[in-house]
């Protein structure tokens, strides 16, 4: 075996960054007679353009079996020299760099000591490189289609961004309509835009634009199976029957008033009625009703066909519509399933679920909506006008017994309510019970400013959740007792209390976590790859995160993260380009693996699977990032860490101590 060594002076003669501090000719003398060393040359600036060309020519001419380059940090130029190796027709992994500049020349005053240290480091590299193997990237064919789960702001933005780039998208949504929370909001902070007006053009693009044929929309659907990995996921989607065709329904609404089955509407707090065939709520898109099979006479075995008979488009209403399983092959998955409002009845001292006039934020949102149960009038259930309204911020949030995190949107939502009450119910006083006020950004603070500085609102600060107690008098009026308030503000009587409940784990997140192997972190949200630099990626390669299933935030953030997740999917899977799998990964020797599974839980990237039958572990190179933890964990020593093998490390240790 012939090893070629290059000692870079990082400058000229003995004035270079390295050559001024290390006696390179002496290093050469110490190395040249080592076994396996073919030649040892001093070069001036190996990384310069001339230096690179000369190095490539020299390597191509001499064709050493192994190469050692002693220069600066491999963190700076390892890739540079690997490219030179490739130019010279050599395998890039048959080269080892030695950092004689940052780790020796620049930190060692004594020239003799530096020279001795450099000799030891080079001996180690020469010894190590003899064990190097020629490694190559593997290339895989991939699907560039993307599955988006959830059609709220984040999922819609992701789907449209991908469709605009020409990608085929499957958009799965569990409800019968698009839009997530905001389409249910008449106003959106901080500018009080109308929610449906904001989202309708976006939803319209999904439903009826040039991009629509790129988006396979699956409503009333959920993901039930995921196999495979980045680039090649096979997924199964279970779609519940709607019994009304979204393709042929013209949205005339003739069928609904004809339906004889009425029951309380969930969306309107059970205070208005809906029919067995109805919209989720008026204005939801697609503008197509659906039949609730749990109440429809026909679907429960009766012979009612009134809706079908009234429908002007034949074949639109189909009682035989069945659940179906849709299979897709996709390269990437974007999770955008949103979050759930915390069940604030669990905060016992706040009276939710006990006193009828204590509402959570979503119920209050509906109560004052123009299409809500009171047509937008702020009245109690027994019809009394609300003279004073208490709004409790952080109901369940920033509370170690409930939600330890800040839910990010509740303060602004409370200020929105403040604004809406001022407009819809002039004369109603609003008392805010708040902890920390969260209103960052260039627009949000203005919203706070408006809520705070007017003649109908008061702000009272509390510290701990236990400082508050909501109680009721016999006449139905409520009292909020705040023990941490100044003495004259400790008792506030009011007619209604709104609890600004925080955001928590969405229903179905657990099962999606199991399917995709993306973990939920201790706050109950999907765990991102990095909280600062990579919030739209999960730790599972090819599964991306968007919106409030990753972290509480507002619509702007969800939209942004939807675009970011789509961007990650676009750059990760490019049409016409195979997926290159880096060779510095772990490999299990299946013949010697005992199947003890020690390695599987230590991998945070879920790159190791257990293969039934032979009962061995297998590393999926497409997911492995090459950290080597499983290699160190294997009790049998049968996992090889490519390019950081035991042989290579031992060779370094031996030579350094020789």
């Amino acid at each position, binding site marked *: 075996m012939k090893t070629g060594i290059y000692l870079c002076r990082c400058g000229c003669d003995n004035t270079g960054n390295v050559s001024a501090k290390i006696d390179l000719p002496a290093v050469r003398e110490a190395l040249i007679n080592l076994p396996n060393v073919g030649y040892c040359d001093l070069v001036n600036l190996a990384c310069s353009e001339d230096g690179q060309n000369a190095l490539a020519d020299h390597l191509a001419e001499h064709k050493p079996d192994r190469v050692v380059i002693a220069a600066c940090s491999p963190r700076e130029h390892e890739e540079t020299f690997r490219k030179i190796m490739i130019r010279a027709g050599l395998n890039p992994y048959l080269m080892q760099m030695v950092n004689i500049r940052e780790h020796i020349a620049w930190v060692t*005053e004594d020239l003799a000591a530096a020279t001795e240290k450099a000799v030891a480091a080079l001996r*180690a590299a020469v010894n190590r490189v003899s064990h190097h193997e020629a490694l190559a990237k593997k290339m895989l064919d991939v699907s560039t289609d993307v599955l988006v789960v959830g059609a709220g702001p984040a999922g819609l933005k992701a789907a449209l961004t991908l469709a605009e780039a020409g990608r085929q998208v499957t958009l799965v949504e569990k409800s019968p309509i698009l839009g997530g929370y905001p389409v249910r909001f008449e106003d959106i902070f901080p500018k009080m835009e109308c929610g449906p007006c904001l989202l309708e053009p976006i939803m319209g693009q999904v439903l009826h634009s040039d991009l629509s044929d790129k988006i396979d929309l699956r409503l009333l659907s959920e993901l039930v199976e995921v196999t495979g990995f980045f680039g090649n996921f096979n997924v199964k989607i279970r779609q519940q029957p709607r019994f009304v065709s979204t393709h042929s329904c013209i949205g005339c609404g003739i069928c609904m008033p004809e339906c004889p089955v009425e029951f309380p509407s969930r969306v309107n707090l059970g205070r208005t009625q809906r029919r067995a065939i109805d919209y989720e709520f008026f204005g939801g898109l697609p503008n197509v009703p659906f039949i609730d099979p749990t109440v429809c006479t026909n679907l429960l075995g009766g012979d009612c066909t009134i809706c079908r008979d009234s429908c002007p488009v034949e074949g639109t209403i189909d009682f035989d519509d069945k659940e179906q399983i849709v299979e897709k092959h996709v390269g990437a998955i974007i999770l955008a399933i949103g979050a759930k409002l915390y069940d604030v009845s669990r905060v016992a001292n706040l009276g939710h679920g006990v006193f009828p006039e204590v509402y959570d934020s979503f119920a209050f949102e509906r109560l004052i909506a123009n299409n809500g149960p009171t047509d937008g009038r702020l009245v109690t259930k027994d019809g009394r006008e609300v003279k004073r309204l208490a709004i409790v911020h952080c109901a369940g949030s920033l509370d170690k017994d409930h939600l330890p995190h800040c839910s990010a949107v509740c303060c602004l939502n409370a200020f929105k309510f403040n604004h809406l009450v001022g407009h819809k119910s002039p004369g109603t006083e609003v008392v805010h019970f708040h902890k920390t006020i969260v209103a960052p950004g260039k627009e949000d603070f203005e919203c706070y400013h408006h809520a705070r500085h007017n003649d109908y609102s008061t702000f009272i600060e509390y510290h701990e959740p236990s400082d508050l107690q909501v109680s009721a008098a016999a006449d139905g009026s409520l009292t909020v007792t705040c023990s941490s308030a100044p003495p004259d503000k400790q008792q506030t009587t009011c007619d209604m209390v709104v609890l600004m409940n925080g955001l928590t784990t969405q229903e179905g997140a657990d099962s999606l976590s199991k399917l995709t192997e993306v973990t939920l972190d201790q706050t109950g949200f999907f765990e991102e790859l990095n909280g600062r630099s990579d919030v739209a990626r999960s730790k599972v390669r090819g599964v991306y995160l968007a919106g409030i299933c990753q972290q509480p935030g507002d619509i702007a953030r969800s939209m942004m993260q939807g675009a970011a997740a789509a961007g990650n999917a676009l750059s990760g899977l490019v049409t016409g380009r195979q997926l290159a799998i880096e060779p510095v990964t772990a490999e299990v020797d299946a013949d010697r693996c005992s199947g003890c599974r020690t390695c599987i839980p230590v991998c945070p990237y879920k790159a190791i699977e257990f293969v039934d039958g032979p009962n061995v572990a297998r590393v999926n190179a497409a997911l492995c990032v090459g*950290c*080597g933890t499983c290699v160190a964990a294997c009790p049998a*020593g049968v996992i090889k860490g490519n390019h*950081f093998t035991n*042989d290579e*490390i*031992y060779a370094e240790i031996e030579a350094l101590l020789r």
Partner: protein
Amino acid sequence: MNTPPFEPKIIGFLCNWCSYAGADKAGAAQLNYPPNVGTIRVMCTGRIDPQFVLKAFAEGADGVVVLGCHPGDCHYKEQNYRMIQRHRLTVKFLEQFGIPADRCRLDFVSAAEGEKFARVIRETVEAVRALGPMPKLPPPPDGGQGVDRSDRSDGSDRSDHHQECSCCH
């Protein structure tokens, strides 16, 4: 007659992302520190098999220093926690052989902490210098000649044990 001071030989295992970069930073800042530590780069301290540490001592190292990302900063999320667990066990094991824990240091150096890197190296060298040369390890019970090279490379001896022994199956 003055005897020259004892110059310990120390092996340093550095993770690529934090500590190796911290060492680069010390270099860029031209911070002087003693040359006694020969460094070995691994991608992550999670790769550091306790056998690497044992191997270093068996080959005559007077000390070992393992430097990784600060807890919570691991480039690979949490592998430095595994290194911490393994280090604790390794140190206990070393003590069974009469090798004091001070000969095997674990610390955390971020990519920004060039000063800290230089300080940790200085302290480690001084600590190991104070302990004196590593006493020669007792020969293996079979009277063999130090480390048997045939079993060092891929753990095949342990693997055979693993395949056959009843505790593993």
